């Protein structure tokens, strides 16, 4: 059913300030890396058309502000997300430590239907930098403890692994959309005869 409509995937990028969320998004969408050092205000999004499993998908990538103060605003953007990307800086241990709180925060604010199975993707950014303080083993352990979250080590500057990571993100998000009813679609949907797990008024639970 999803193939009939244009699929829109809403992806949220979360993480501490200055881990490279904006850079990752820019690298992926515009294939550009800027040396500019600018804090993000509130949230911003870019879209990109990709083909996943022979299906054309529009990815709407939301880049949020990592500053603590902006989080009161960020929550407004979490709702209706299909996938959440957690980013940390492999050279900054603090950014890794706060992943837990970011994840919990997202689950609380976005209140997805199946918190356990909601697709997260973890990106360890800035692998081009030395010295590393978070080993990939440690990151993977964390991922395993959180229901096998996929983990990628990326560098927005050198464009290492960025494509692959976002492709995985798209796949995960799509899988999430397929597994559940498309609640966030703005068009009123037909009556579905397929196996739907959720009552049709479940959409109100997210508001």
């Amino acid at each position, binding site marked *: 059913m999803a193939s009939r409509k244009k699929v829109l995937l809403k992806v949220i990028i979360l993480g501490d300030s200055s881990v490279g969320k904006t850079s990752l998004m820019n690298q992926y969408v515009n294939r550009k890396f800027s040396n500019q050092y600018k804090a993000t205000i*509130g949230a911003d999004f870019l879209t990109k058309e990709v083909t996943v499993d022979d299906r054309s998908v529009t990815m709407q990538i939301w880049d949020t502000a990592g500053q603590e103060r902006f989080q009161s*605003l960020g929550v407004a953007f979490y709702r209706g997300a299909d996938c959440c990307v957690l980013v940390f800086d492999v050279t900054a241990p603090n950014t890794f430590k706060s992943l837990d*709180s970011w994840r919990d925060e997202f689950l609380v604010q976005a209140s997805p239907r199946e918190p356990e199975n909601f697709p997260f993707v973890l990106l360890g950014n800035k692998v081009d930098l030395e010295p590393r303080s978070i080993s990939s083993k440690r990151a993977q352990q964390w991922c395993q403890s959180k229901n096998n979250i996929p983990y990628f080590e990326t560098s927005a500057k050198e464009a290492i692994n960025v494509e692959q990571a976002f492709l995985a993100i798209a796949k995960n998000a799509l899988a999430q959309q397929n597994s559940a009813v498309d609640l966030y679609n703005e068009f009123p949907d037909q009556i579905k005869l397929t196996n739907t797990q959720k009552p049709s008024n479940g959409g109100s639970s997210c508001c």
Partner: protein
Amino acid sequence: METSYIEFVQNSSVLHHNFQKSQEECLRLKERLDMMTRDNKDLEKKLDFARKLLDQEKSNTKAVERERDNLDMQIAQVKELFLRDRNTRRVIPEDTLEKLAFLDTIRIDNEEAPHLSCIPEVNSTGSILSNFSYSKSEDDLDISGKFHWKKHRPSTGAALEQPATKKRRSSGNRIVEISTNDTVRATTTLTMPKNGPITATSVIEAVPLAPSAPISNAYAPSAPPPDTPQSKESYKHFREAPGIPSDIVFQSWARSEGPPKPVRAKFERVDAKSRQESNNDIGYGQKQHVLQMKLIMMPNNCIVCHKKIGFTKSAWKCKDCKNVCHMECKDQLSTLCIPVVNTPNQGNGLGVISDYTGTIPPLVPPIIIHCINEIESRETKEVGLYRVPGSEMDVKNLKERFLRGKAAPCLNDVDVYVLCGVIKDFLRSLEPLVTKNLLKDFFRAAEHNNNQMLFQTISELPQSNRDTLAYIILHLQRISELKEVKMPADNLAKIFAPTLIGFTSENLKDKSEVITELMQQINVMKFLLATPPSYWESLIHVNQTQCGARLQQTPSTDSLLIRSTKTPMRLQGNTPKKRRFFPTPPDNRY
């Protein structure tokens, strides 16, 4: 026989009745008498009280009048000096003479009203009483709360109008010397608009003199009249003073809000060079430690050598900032003395800035001063100051240690990002420095890029908010100038805007509304950061010279004021607000 007996009985019963009646009457009258005497006593007490108040008021009036006369004399002397002395007349430029023409009119004004007409001396006792008891109860309210520790402070109440500056001026000052080769040049500028405030600025400079020039000549033409207390004061400075660079500039100014009020004299030394060199000890630079010998019972580190001070060893402890140092380290003691402030509402993070500031201007919380000083003293060039997060745990711990009201923790080996985090976190836990009622004005000023409007609005902020804002902005401006840090004003504005400026309402549901307000905040912040540092410095410096009585009042009145205007919001309770503004990640992080 029988009839007469009956008559007798009847008579006696009537008599008995009468007797009882009169007894009752007697009792009643007695009671009334008691009541009256009690009333009388009360009234007498009241009368006494009123008399006392009247006396107090009269003495106040006298003091004020004396002050005024004194100042009149000063004005007269200045007038004499400038108008009668031909020599001077030639020296003074035309426009100054024009300004001085107002001297006459002002004198006449004063003669018309020899007594302060605004104090109703012949008013009925009742009204004074009620007036006074009203104000008294207000005082009580003030004192009975968390500010009762200020009660013992001198110079509250009666002598309010007397400028306490004289004492301060002569006591706590650096010592200055003028070598025989120097001359003193004093320039006094009096501005006397018809209705506005009178401003007199006198700049006294020590100027190196060519060895041949006669000293007496250099003194004569433009020095202020030697009789006035002000100039005496300044001369004292010069005579007592050893070892001052000769380019130091002294400045004094007097200000008043109109003729009937006494002119409040203010004195300030401005040393432009040294100020630029040590920007970070603005205000607190002069504060000396108040050292007391103590037996150390709690393990504590010496602030000079950072080594432990042993149990039951004697050591010096500063009464104000609670720092300790070894007996032998005392000579090298140079750390700033920033008095520890007891925070009335420790524990719950929400509050207003004035709860955390001391009573000595500038009213900036010690936690901010310490952190900013430490960051600046390191001359760090780390990328992303204030943007890169510090370790949550460290930030939380350090902040708690600061707010516990003990001596300031040693910051030597604290990560600079943690320091930034503490500052951000502390500010975030308070209400924004820009109060809600002025927020719209700030938005408007930034929108029109109107400096005048901005200054006006800033001046309306409570003092502690204003001082702290100035202190932080000055620091941020310095940070933004460091190229290596990569935090230009733009970036800093984004980060601090929601914290320092705040939103008009906490319940902005609409995303677009939030974004537009954010943009406005950031504009305001950019505007503030673009305001020249000299303005912010003047804010901190002027405040420093305010007289004691006003300073003490400020924190309490401020917080009361804020509380009253914010009641509806505060009533919403802490928990919902906390949740909205500090969602889980930052919650954990402090």
